Structure formats: structure tokens, C-alpha cells
């Protein structure tokens, strides 16, 4: 019973990792950029939900929609201002810009809202039991919303025109634009969806761990990035799988081995995956063009 309980704990944190990893993987898939500012979008999303619930008194679901929208816009603005001018520049320039954007967002928030952690409003209370297994509503909500969004994303990518455009641009940007696909618009949409998902991830994360501070996105973003790499960066199902593997590995290590070994084991998995399959579990092997 304890084992299933721990599995649920792992799924809960893992599904949030997965949501955030999706943003990393989508952006990487389409512009080959590791968007380090993505972790900080989580933080921005949490702050938006915090203020919208506490100061404006909106319910959680409206706040989440607001955070999704605002962060989607923020993602697009960041892309337009910081990354687009560097699209033809060497990849390292864009990478360093991403780190710069991340530091900028953190410090703007630190100056505006002070570095002290703030309590996050109570979203949903209580537990329910399935047999002898006890699940909190927070956990159920987290897993539920994450799964829903992942399904929605799959539908968008596989079934809609926008999704088709995204797949085309990620395969070959030049050819896609020759076929009449608006590449800039597609990239913007990708950033918008990725950032929106990060905002929801942030809100769910804060509902489960109710303290918000300007640096909360840094470590969490890094772990989500590792999840994306384990799953195979660029692959959407890979990001989901990677997130769940990370979450479950963390919670099982804490429960059955030792909390001191958590990070060693999680990052150990990353090393093993990269040794065995450098492109990640579900990543495609890309042949170098010579």
C-alpha cells in the first residue's frame, strides 16, 4: 500500500515536471534553443495566480486562465525581443541571451516583490481514500489538470493546422517557409503554448508547495529541463515520460533508499540515458549534415 502511495506522490510531482518539460522540448524542437528563461515563467505564473487570488479575489481556475494568457504573452514578447534578432546568430549567443533573460526576470521580481517568500493561497483542502490509499485533493487536481493539458496539446499538435505547421517548421524551417508556412507566427505560437503550460505548472506546483519566491523557478526549471533531456529533447511524448520518470524516481529514492541520494540518483539516470541513448529515450537520432 505504501508503495502505491509513494507512486502517487511521484506521479503528482512528475506531472508538474512534465508540464514544464513540454515547454523546453517544444521550443527546442522548433528553434533549437534551450530556453533557460522558461523556469522563471513558472515563477511569474505563480505570482500572477497569487495576486489574482489574494488581491483581486478571483477563484483558482480563473486565475490559472489569467496566468496562462499573461505568461503566453510574456513568452511571445521574450521571443520577439530577445531571441528573434539572434535567430541567424550562432546558437551559443541565443543560449547566453536566454540565461540573461532568466536573470533579468528573477531580479525584476526580486526588486518589485521583495525576496521574502510569500504564502500561496489555499486552493483545495482535504483528502479522499481509495481503499487504504489516501489521496489529497491537491494531488488529484495536479495530476488531473496535467493529464488534461497533455492530451489537449497532443490534439493540437497532431490534429490542427497550427500543429501541422509546428511539426513542419521543426522538421525543416527553410522548406516550411517555402511551402507558405508563416514561420515567425508558428514560432510565436510555440512560445505562447510552452509559456502558458509553464504558468499552469507553476500554479499547480505552488498549490502543492505553498510558498512563492523570485528564485523558485531556477532549480525546478533545471529539473524539468533534465526531464526533457531524459525523455529526448524535441519529443513531446518524451517530455511527458521524462517528467514522470523524474518524479517517480525522486519520490521512490526518498521513500526507500535515502533522501540524501535523491539528486545523485536522478542525475545518475540522466547520465545513464545519455550514455545508452544520447538523443534521449524517445528522441530521434539526427544525422549531422555535412
Amino acid at each position, binding site marked *: 500500500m505504501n508503495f502505491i502511495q509513494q507512486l502517487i506522490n511521484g506521479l503528482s510531482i512528475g506531472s508538474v515536471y512534465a508540464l514544464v518539460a513540454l515547454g523546453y522540448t517544444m521550443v527546442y524542437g522548433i528553434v533549437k534553443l534551450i530556453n533557460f528563461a522558461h523556469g522563471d515563467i513558472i515563477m511569474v505564473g505563480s505570482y500572477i495566480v497569487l495576486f489574482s487570488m489574494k488581491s483581486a479575489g478571483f477563484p483558482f481556475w480563473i486565475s490559472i486562465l489569467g496566468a496562462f494568457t499573461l505568461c503566453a504573452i510574456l513568452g511571445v514578447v521574450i521571443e520577439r525581443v530577445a531571441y528573434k534578432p539572434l535567430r541567424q546568430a550562432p546558437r551559443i549567443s541565443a543560449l547566453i541571451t536566454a540565461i540573461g533573460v532568466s536573470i533579468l526576470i528573477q531580479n525584476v521580481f526580486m526588486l518589485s516583490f521583495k525576496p521574502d517568500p510569500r504564502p500561496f493561497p489555499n486552493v483545495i483542502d482535504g483528502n479522499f481514500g481509495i481503499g487504504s490509499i489516501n489521496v489529497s485533493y491537491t494531488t488529484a487536481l495536479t495530476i488531473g489538470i496535467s493529464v488534461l493539458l497533455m492530451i489537449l496539446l497532443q490534439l493540437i499538435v497532431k490534429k490542427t493546422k497550427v500543429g501541422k505547421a509546428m511539426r513542419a517548421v521543426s522538421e525543416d524551417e527553410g522548406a516550411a517557409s517555402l511551402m507558405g508556412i508563416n514561420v515567425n507566427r508558428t514560432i510565436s505560437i510555440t512560445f505562447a503554448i510552452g509559456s502558458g503550460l509553464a504558468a499552469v505548472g507553476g500554479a499547480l506546483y505552488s498549490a*502543492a508547495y505553498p510558498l512563492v519566491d523570485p528564485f523558485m523557478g531556477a532549480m525546478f526549471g533545471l529539473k524539468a529541463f533534465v526531464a526533457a533531456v531524459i525523455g529526448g529533447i524535441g519529443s513531446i511524448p518524451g517530455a511527458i515520460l521524462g517528467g514522470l520518470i523524474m518524479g517517480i524516481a525522486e519520490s521512490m529514492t526518498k521513500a526507500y533508499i535515502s*533522501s540524501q541520494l535523491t539528486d545523485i540518483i536522478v542525475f545518475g539516470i540522466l547520465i545513464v540515458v545519455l550514455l545508452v541513448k544520447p538523443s534521449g529515450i524517445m528522441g530521434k537520432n539526427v544525422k549531422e549534415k555535412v
Partner: protein
Amino acid sequence: MKLKRLAALLTAGIFVLSAVGCTGGETSKDDLNADSGTQTENNNDGNNNTSDNSDTIKIGGIGPLTGELAMYGTNAMNGAQLAINESDGALGKKIEFIILDDKGDITEATNAYNKHVNNNEVSAIIGAVTSQPSAAVAVAAAKDNTPMITPTGTAIDITTYGENVFRACYTDPFQGKVIAAFAASSLEKKTAAVIYNKDSDYSIGCAEAFKTTFEEKGGSIVGYESYSNSDKDFKSQLTNIASKNPDVLFIPDYYSVVALIAKQVKDVNLKAVLLGTDGWDSVHSVVEDPSLIEGAFFCNHYSPDDTDPEVQNFITKYKETYGSEPNAFAALGYDAAKLIINAIETAGTTDKEAVVEALKNTDISAVTGSIKFDEERNPIKSVSILQIQNGQYKMYEKLNPSDL
């Protein structure tokens, strides 16, 4: 290139400024020496101790004023400032209190100490506030024999670095011991679990002492789990603990972590009485849902509903000055400053050795109890056990050192 030149100019500017500053200080010192010949001797053996000759006594404060632990540093330093404002100076001179931020970081704390001693020429140090920076400051202060009191550094090793290092609060193991004795004897609980931060000396010190004492008193420890500094998820450990169903859960850590753990204790449906240490002070400011910590006990240095006139006087003045209720950190900061001022008055000088000697023989009544120091320069005083009732801290029991 442009940047380099600018940097060079700036550096040159700083050198010129500091040179001017030095000569300025030098002349005024000579002038004063000519007037008061007797004090020059004193001045020569206490290396560079200009404070004897100026009309102010400088005391340096070190604490985290920004970052996660900012609330502690600000409160402790406010308390110290209040005691200094209240004192009308010492030895007929004004006291100037200079505070530097250590951000809760060891390196920053050492830098702050060096700045205090080299640039500000302070006579004594109040700080640092948290345990690890306090230990770093203690190591540095021990080399110069600067009188130092950490108001709130509870780690056992801090005072072991030098004869000149004191503390105004009790130690980590002492807290663990008191709360374990309280759980076993006063609450009559039989089983306990502990969840502690393995990256924090404070947390480990409390946890180990709790375990030993609770077992000595006939209780059994059914869960002993740990986590690390960056952790936000404790559900795995708490699920393990919940399956053992302990009577009490001891969480020795600072308030922001306690807020996260308390939420997850409820999530995993663990129904134990929560026990904590002085790091819990201010916990209600970061817990959105007060029911999470309702009924929890923690030990603290003082209680606002203590009827002692000294305590009530302090609370009134603190509220007048800062407009908020003082917590234990403010009270300890206040007491630390009081200890230093008292020692300087008793010694009749700011000479380092004399002040240290006077501190060792301290016997004053302060806000956090009447204070004497033992051989390890830890205070011997009583402990207040508080309970959180309706989101308020209520004095539950006062334990004297002899009760343990």
C-alpha cells in the same frame, strides 16, 4: 577598452579617497591624544582601537537583511537598535550601531566582520543571526579577540571558537532536549517521528538531541527521516512516517520550510501533534491556512504574554518604535545589545579583554530571562513552550533548567 579605463579610474578614485580618509582620521587622533595623555597607553596595546578616544562607541551588527532569512535578521537588529537607543550610551559616550547584511551567507558574514573591524573600528559585535554565519564570524572574531555575542546562533560549536564568543540564546541540542522532555513528560506521548534538514547543523543538532532524550524518557522513535536544503517535496518521507502513525512529529527547521511541511503533513493525512523549535517563530506569517499548524507546540526564548514587567516594557517600546509585535529574534537582539552595553559599563572601558571578562561575569535580568553564562559561554536560563491557538502563540509552560 572603455570599460577597463573606467574601472581603472574608479579604482584610482577609491584609493585617493581612502588615503584622504586615513590621514583625516590620523590627525584627529593625534589631537585628541595631546589632550588626554592617560588614554594613549590604552590605545597603543589595543591595536588601532580609536574608539577609546572618540566620543562614540561603535558596535557592529551582522545579520541577514535580505533573502529567505531576512525576517530574522531585521527583527534581531531592530531589537538591538532599540536597546542601544534606550541606553543613553555607555561610559558617557554615545553608542553608534552599524548594521551590515550577511544575506545568511558564510562568506558575506566574514566580509561584514572584516569591514566592521577594519573600517568601522567597532568595539564589539552583535551577530550573526543564523548559525552558520555566526560560526564564521566567531572564527574570525576569535583571532582578534573582539567581544562577540550572537543573539540567536544556536549551533553548539559557535562559542567553542574563542573565549570571546558568547550567545544570548540557548543551543540546538538544548532545544531538542527540552522539547523531547516536554513531549514525553508533560504531554505523555509514547511514539515520535522526526523529519529534519540534513544540510543544516541547526536541524541536525536539534533532531539528534530530541531522539536521545525522547528514548531516555521511555518513548520510542518510530520514524527518522531527512531532506535537503533545496527540497520542496516531503511527501515521500511523510508518507513513510504516516504509515507508522506516531503521536508527535518533530520538525526542527526554519519557518518557511515548516510552512511547506505542515501543508504536506495534511496532504498525506498524518495526524500527529507537531513539535518545533525556535525557528518556528513567525511561522504564522508564511502559512496561509492557520489550521495546518493549529495546536502545534514549539519552544521559544520568550513569550509575549509573559507578565514580567521587563518583558511588557520591551513589547510596548518595540511596538512604539517599529509598529509591530516583537518576536523572539527581536527579544534576543535586544538582550544581546543589553549584555554588551552592560559589559562595557562594568568594564569601564572598551578594551577588548576587559569587556570579555565583564561578559563572563554577567548576571542581569533581561527580556528572555535572567542571564548568566556557563563555562562554554552559553546562557543559563529558562525556556518557554508556546502553543499555537487560533493562529496566536500562547504561553503553555515555562521550563527551568533545573526541571530537565
